[in-house]
């Protein structure tokens, strides 16, 4: 297989004295969907922030298209082609939907391409077109998530980092959004790194999966095989059937490691 578009090796990231990521490595092959699963506080968000340059790792490196990008400013990383859809959407609440999308394309200088992508985005999420002149803060949570994804897409990224897109959404909406994510991947060739607690959805969507536990990768395999594993079924899929949403905390009895 060819060199992965994004290669993370041995990163260690701290919040002050607290070590949140303890030597994490993973590969994201071009045009694939890779997912990182993990419970609350496992360090998923921190991994994505380290990739996009919001946080700097103390050790290890992040290589994007053969170039080391760790410790670069996030706006630089973004210009290279990595768009981050942050946890909790983070839309610009007092700007209109259209202005939010325009901000997504802030770094671009090709108005025609931007206009095309705007149409494409409205094609994926027609509801955004209806609400184009509404303030983003007045959208529903699901619509804000669609906006956050669309806004990232407006930069025409090579890699999109998605942090828990299912957070707080109804199962139906989660399915719809994941369907679009797959379409974005297939139709536009955008490589996707997806971080999720909703293991069921993520494993059905992605090609390859990693399991993160307290700052370490404890399992890595194709999603098909991960779906079969007893541990995954018990700890990550079992909870889904009980229908627990929102606060997904459960006792961790680790059978691996």
């Amino acid at each position, binding site marked *: 297989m060819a060199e992965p578009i994004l290669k993370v090796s041995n990163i260690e990231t701290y919040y002050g004295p607290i070590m949140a990521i303890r030597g994490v490595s993973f590969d994201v092959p071009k045009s694939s969907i890779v997912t990182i699963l993990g419970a609350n506080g496992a360090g998923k968000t921190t991994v994505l922030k380290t990739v996009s340059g919001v946080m700097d790792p103390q050790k290890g490196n992040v290589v994007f298209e053969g170039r080391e990008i760790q410790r670069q400013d996030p706006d630089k990383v973004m210009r290279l082609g990595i768009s981050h859809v942050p946890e909790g959407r983070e839309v610009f609440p007092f700007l209109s939907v259209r202005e939010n999308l325009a901000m997504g394309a*802030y770094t671009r200088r090709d108005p025609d391409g931007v206009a095309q992508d705007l149409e494409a985005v409205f094609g994926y999420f027609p509801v955004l077109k209806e609400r184009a002149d509404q303030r983003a*803060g007045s959208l529903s949570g699901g619509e804000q998530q669609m906006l956050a994804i669309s806004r990232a897409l407006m930069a025409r990224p090579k890699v999109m980092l998605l942090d828990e897109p299912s957070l707080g959404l109804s199962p139906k909406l989660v399915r719809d959004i994941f369907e679009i994510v797959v379409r974005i991947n297939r139709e536009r060739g955008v490589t996707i790194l997806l971080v999720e607690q909703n293991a069921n959805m993520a494993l059905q969507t992605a090609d390859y999966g990693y399991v993160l536990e307290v700052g370490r990768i404890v399992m890595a395999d194709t999603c098909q095989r991960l779906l079969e594993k007893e541990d995954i079924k018990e700890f990550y899929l079992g909870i889904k059937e009980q229908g627990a949403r929102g606060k997904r905390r459960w006792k961790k009895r680790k059978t691996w490691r």
Partner: protein
Amino acid sequence: MGCIYGLVALGFVLIYKATELVNFAQGDLLMLGAFVCYMSVAWWGLPYWAGFLIAVVAIAAFGALLDALVLRRVIGQPQFAVVMLTIGLGAMFRTFASVTWGSEIYTLPTPFGGVWTVGGVTLSHQYLSIVAGTLILCGGLYAFFNHTRIGIAMQATSQNQLAAYYMGIPVKLIFSLVWAISAGVAAAAGILLAPVTLIDINMGLAVALKAFAAAVLGGFGSIPGAVIGGIVIGLIELYAGATLPEGFKDTAPYIVLLLMLIVRPQGLFGTLARKKV
């Protein structure tokens, strides 16, 4: 007067919204603007408008520099430390002004000498120039913030700094620009004000305090609120001066502010709205 408070208040609000700092040196930037304009006109013999332009541009550049060299380094420090720093900077500017220009009181020659009489009311060009200047500045800023890419990016940055970073918006540059704009507006306010209060090194102090009150009155963080707050404070001052006993002129605005904070703590135009989760 109200317009001037409004303009200075606008400067407070701009910086606060973008960077969450309160710049107490705002009044002293106003004073510097007036002095630079005076220097251009009276010492170098430049025409008024050239002086105006030079002063606004120079102070705006100075504001950007201040952000890049000083304030960027204290972001993340406790609020009170930053507040002290801006107060200290203000004091330094006053010292600088008194060393450079002396502590006399100067009169800025302006082209606004005449009066218009409309229906029995006499309007001096000086006051009209303040009103017109305020309108033009506010209109210009409004158009800038709502219709230019960089203006919208400034709004975006002030609403969600992290997300602005994710969009590739150069946040640091935006902060410097915000400082430049608000320093430039302060300078313009100083020049417009100069014929009324005359120029001396302390001219910014009282204005800044009332402008701060205006910003609070308008709901700190609301730009139209700041301007309207300024006008309200100016009007209160005017009526208090005309109808109440001596001394109330300067306290009345604060009494109103106090009442306002009790009744409507978020200010006239403040919002308590929060981001949806």
